[in-house]
């Protein structure tokens, strides 16, 4: 399944598709790649992807800021930047907090 155990990768997803649909392994992997590429390209082109029952990805643009070169004290403009925000659906948030869910990793959240 590739990668560290406990980490889900593209290979894990391809394997799940292979077992669920019975397509060839090659085609299953190609479909997973096509799905991820489509989401990525849509985000770059259109700025949002909403998957019901899972969550939505939205591109946010930070405003332009004024920075300063700490060495020279010179004022330099910082161009606006785009970042991606994931908003989990209510269903996904609830799934992660069911009584049956495994113990959480405490990483200081």
């Amino acid at each position: 399944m590739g990668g560290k155990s406990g980490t889900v990768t593209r290979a894990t997803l391809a394997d799940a598709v292979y077992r669920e649909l019975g397509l060839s392994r090659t085609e299953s992997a190609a479909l997973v790649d096509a799905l991820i590429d489509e989401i990525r390209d849509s985000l770059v082109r259109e700025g949002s992807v909403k998957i019901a029952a899972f969550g939505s990805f939205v591109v946010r643009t930070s405003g332009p800021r004024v920075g300063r070169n700490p060495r020279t004290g010179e004022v330099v403009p910082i161009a606006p930047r785009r970042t991606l925000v994931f908003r989990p659906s209510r269903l996904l948030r609830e799934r992660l907090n069911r009584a049956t869910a495994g113990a959480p990793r405490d990483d200081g959240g």
Partner: protein
Amino acid sequence: MTRSELLRRLAAAHPHLYKRDIERMVDTVFETIAAALERGQRVELRGFGAFTVHLRRGRRGRNPRTGRVVEVPPRRVPRFKPGKDLRERLNAVPAGGE
């Protein structure tokens, strides 16, 4: 883009597959990711980004309407961090145009 739009685009790009199978494939992928997060696993998709599960500690909150103290239980939240490739592609054209 919505889920149904996504299904339509994938079906158009894969005319040899049944739409039904495209739909099962998409649902299988998101279900596998959700189930992994439920188990507390990390999901790392090269060229896209990584999902992780973080713990929010419980805290003592206050109902703003009644002023009553309520216990907010600890809970787990999923997070997504876009990968380097995606961050670079989002900023390939200077932002602020829209």
